[in-house]
């Protein structure tokens, strides 16, 4: 499964955003919320990002079930009091 793993240095950080730098001169605004609690300016963090195919499949399945329920409930019968015919 494709995944990205990088090490970054934590520069400034406030309640919402942290500035992380990479070795090749990227500066990345990163949500502080996604940083562990013990992180402070000067820390080095390892970030791993991977696609969660299994969860994606589950969600898709649940969504399809919901769609089918909606069709069953509201798409099988003629409306009770059609105001108009087209």
């Amino acid at each position, binding site marked *: 499964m494709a995944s990205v793993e990088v090490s970054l240095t934590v520069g400034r950080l406030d*309640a*919402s955003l942290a500035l992380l730098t990479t070795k090749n001169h990227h500066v990345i605004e990163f949500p502080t919320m996604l940083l562990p609690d013990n992180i402070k300016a000067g820390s080095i963090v390892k970030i791993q990002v991977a696609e969660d195919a299994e969860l994606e499949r589950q969600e898709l399945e649940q969504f399809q079930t919901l769609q089918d329920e909606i069709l069953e409930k509201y798409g099988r019968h003629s409306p009770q009091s059609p105001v108009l015919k087209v």
Partner: protein
Amino acid sequence: MLSQGSIPEVREDDIGSAIDERRAKLPQFQDLGPPDLVSIVKYTPSGSASSHNNKRSSMQLEPSVSSSAGGGGGGGSAAAGDLHANDKHKGEVGTFLYCVGADTSDPTSIAVFLKNMADAIAEKPQVWFGRHKPYRVARVTFATWNAFRQCDVEVVVHIPGAVQSYFLDTRGEVLTVAAEERELVWAETFASGVVRAIAMMADNREDGEVNNVVETRILNPLVSGEIGDVADHFIDVFPLLYARGVALGAPCDVACASRTNNYLCETLLHVTRLTRNFRRCRAMLEALQRDHPEVVVLLARVLLDADLEVDAVRLVHDDLSAHGGLVTAHRSELLCVQAAFLLDAKHDYAAAQRLAQAAVDCAPSEFRPWHLLVQSYVCLNDIENALLALNGCPVAPNRDRYIFKRVVSVAQDSANLHLPLPMDVVLDEVTGLNSRDIINEHKSVSPALLNLPAATLKANARTRYHLLTEIARKTGWESLLRYRSKLFVMEEEYQVASTPPTEEGDPLKPDGIRTKRLCERWLDNLFMVLYEDLKAYTLWQAEQLHFEAQNTHYSKTTTEWELLGLCALRLGHREEAATAFEAGLQHRFSAESSRKLLQIYLHERSRLKKDSDLSSSQVTAAVLDYDNKIIDLCVKICCWNHRWYSEFSVLLLDSLSVVVDDMGITKLSNEISSRFPETVVQLANDNLLAFYADFTDDGYDK
């Protein structure tokens, strides 16, 4: 009903200066652009001048071949400024006004419209700044913005004489249009005009469709056509323009306009609903869908408007199930259609919430998915998630509704403003209202009531405020505050947390900030706004109770009642709002109170019809009662609009249509005749009843 009294005008300091100013401002026109401009040159005829003119040939309705728009022939590059340099008369005066809703589908239609206006002015001596002036019109120029092509279309009618028309690009240069493109350009020009008229009414419906540019004549674009049925024509040209609809911009609850989410599409849906032209529109969209799959969004909405629920549900289901995991560009919009349907029509809040969440996930920066998500949570009584989702709503502080703006600035009390009182329709209570008295009434209102901040919220801020008031209605104020401090970090805590580490590298933040989150500043502000509204409302209710307990009459002016009613309405207290508006309307007419009351009545009426606790005869009697009140309000508002040069209101057409559905056009007409003077009856027939009878797709009973 074109009469001298229904044409507002602004006198120019220099003849033609309004057109010049418009041309200079073309580079600033955005999206839908401003209303059309009518520039008039008129004169009081002397012997020599009129004999000079009589030498001219009679009016020629076809555009002169020498102009570029006239067929791409020779001489098309003449500077537009030169085209005015004819027809000098002694004692000429230049005037202008704005105009909306005129048929701009070809130069002939525009010329006929201008000629009618010229005739009205010349019909009899005009009352002109206190004197009677027997004006003749030398020429009329019409300028209308083609929003698709970003060009201004000008038509000049010389009387007597020729008609010229040309297209100007944003630099004011004459644009050459190839003969084969001419039809398309005029279709664009026509649609731009219809969209402007409808979009303004739709965007400002909550604000009573009020237009602040008083020197504007507003016509119903759906009945003003010289070309036959305007609605049919609009539906027919829609496919030609569809792919470029984004150029027109979108309502302010859309963050980023898309092909299916813009003013052109919104207008199509309004036109179709108003004229009940569902069959034609459905066929058109089904054909269009073959090349543009995303049209499914519009088709679903039309089917729902046409009460073809089952068809709509299937259509949406099939599209949402077809693409597997892939996210189509229109997925979020379609999910919103489905969510809104489940929420409003089916009260299936749990399903609506899941759909809204799915819409948010694929378009997190769009507004509507978030609004629907909050709404679902409110309906599910899930206050915490409702507040968190509200806090997550994206905002666009600079977006605003489409309103008409002046191209030529005119002071409110300008000595150049000619604002006649239309004497052709008289309903004392309405048309005789003294605006000075109302201003004085305003001045006497306590500032606390007059300056409630909720009244000035704009665009999406108002929507988000509405969502907050719905939450507050479920929780009450005290409990709302508890929720707030449980979920959100307060500003002070934030300040501490965001201070950069000093000396020893402070720990990141105080405990708890991770589980709580920052309350967006705008939401914090809305809490304050809500507090002010609640304070005013509570004070009023307590006062009134106190007076009633003492058997004293609780006396307020109409303006005060109106402000209290609006406050109650914002807080969702519909019944108290109605009481306030009704109390105010007992003293005198108020357009704003009437419009709000109209909307409350419509709402109550529809609730009644669904009320299963009442017997059918009870319902019928109660509905009839509401119908009569609705008729009364609609006719009065129609008179008021006419007095301010507007003959078009989507609100009135929508409102009265439910009455027509109940009693048919003939009975409604009789009702109106029995209650109102002749001129008012005529106005109601022209502006309202004739529309149902002659401009709709036989959805109404005679």
